């Protein structure tokens, strides 16, 4: 049929696959760990309360003396 593939080539390719998979896994895991261990996840919440003064209202009226009825006997 065609040329015979040597066992050496197969072994080399197999090793390459193992190395690439191992390296990529290591890189991915180490990057994930780096993200997880970031110390800079800082959330600073500053609350500023502005309190207004009490509010006031006024009820008022003035009462005048009742005039005397005129023409009273």
């Amino acid at each position, binding site marked *: 049929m065609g040329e015979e593939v040597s066992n050496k080539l197969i072994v080399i390719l197999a090793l390459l696959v193992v190395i690439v998979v191992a390296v990529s896994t290591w890189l991915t895991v*180490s990057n994930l760990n780096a993200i997880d261990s970031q110390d800079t996840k800082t959330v600073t919440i500053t609350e500023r309360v502005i309190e*207004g003064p009490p509010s006031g209202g006024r009820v008022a009226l003035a009462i005048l003396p009742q005039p005397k009825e005129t023409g009273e006997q």
Partner: protein
Amino acid sequence: MEETTSRTLVVIMVATLFIALFGSVATLNKFGGFRGLTGAWGGPGTPVYGAVNLSIQTSIQINFTDDSANFGTGYICPGCTEPVTLSTEGLNDTICNCGWNIPNGFLLENQGNVYVRVNLTNLRSSDTFLGGTNPGYAWKWGNTSGVVCTGTNPQNLTGNITYSNLTAAIADPGLVLCEKFNFTSGNNRINISFKISIPTTAMGTGKNDTWTAKAVGNP
């Protein structure tokens, strides 16, 4: 037969190699991982992940936007022997009221950006405000619209719908008018109405009472 198996193995391995390489490149690109290979990772200029500075400004501000209920000057018309009763809701004694007008009540608004607990105080009772025999000085409050007042105290949910006579002034720290006074537009107004009953024996003089509303944040 042996030759075919070897070739198939080679094809599978090459395919696996490419898939693994492609997966690695794609994943590392997502995480920016190639910088790790160049030594840039963790060095100067490294982006700061998850740093958030948040500033919240809370404004506690209530205000009597209508802060005057002035009945003006008047007297009980000659010939009348009964008290004259007036209210800021429009009640008038057209026969015996000589001169007093009918003002609006108070309008209290939450102009801040947070729910507040409102305490109300005043200085005078019906006796010290009007004087005379059996004077009447009553108040009530209610919503203008919407859900103005909520909270755990049921009496504060729907507003005080009947007048309450002030047999004594509401002293400090005051009455909790509203546990959670809403601040959202359309739900942030409280009406306070007054009704007075002026006896014929009330002293002829000027009468004043001051009401104060204090707010504490109650988010």
